[in-house]
């Protein structure tokens, strides 16, 4: 097992951990905005780590370029989707959760 394999395995491990943490956050946080924070923050880094680990696995081929394209696209669309989602919710009058409120 070479150094690159170990690096790839570490990136995949960190990515999987971040993904599961984000999913637990989306399940356990009390309201929409806090859930958005959990999902929006973990998604991009999780994607980057996974695609980086895969790129090391594939080696320097055309597949790496495609992975780079997927990553670049995700890097722009994930925050944009989060922003638009928060804006839509606020525009339609969804109030943020405050301490002491009932958990929705």
């Amino acid at each position: 097992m070479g150094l690159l394999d170990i690096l790839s395995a570490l990136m995949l491990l960190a990515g999987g951990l971040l993904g599961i943490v984000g999913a637990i956050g989306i399940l356990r946080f009390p309201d929409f905005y806090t859930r958005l924070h959990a999902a929006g923050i973990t998604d991009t880094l999780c994607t980057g780590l996974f695609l980086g680990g895969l790129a090391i696995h594939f080696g320097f081929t055309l597949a790496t370029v495609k992975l780079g394209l997927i990553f670049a696209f995700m890097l722009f669309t994930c925050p944009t989707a989060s922003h638009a989602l928060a804006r839509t919710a606020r525009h339609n009058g969804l109030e943020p959760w405050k301490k002491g409120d009932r958990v929705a």
Partner: protein
Amino acid sequence: MMLTAAALAILVTMALAIVRALLGPTVYDRILAVNMFGTKTVLLIAFIAGMADRGDYLDVALVYAMINFVAIVAVMKYFEYGDLGHAGDQTAGKGGDH
């Protein structure tokens, strides 16, 4: 081996996201969960490409990422304006309130 473990982690994430999509009290929670589900589907397709050692499957992942984004934005526009053909906020950028 590592790819399989990572794919299993993605599947766990997708399962938790779909629980939130089914529970979610507001429609925004559901959209958020479905968005996360779609993102993880893209990664899962990429992992299938890695496990089969076929780089051409990555095209599918790329197209899925684009469709996912467009679908999420379209659904949100529908819920913000109640109409997919709406021209958006007309007062924005013209010195309006926001």
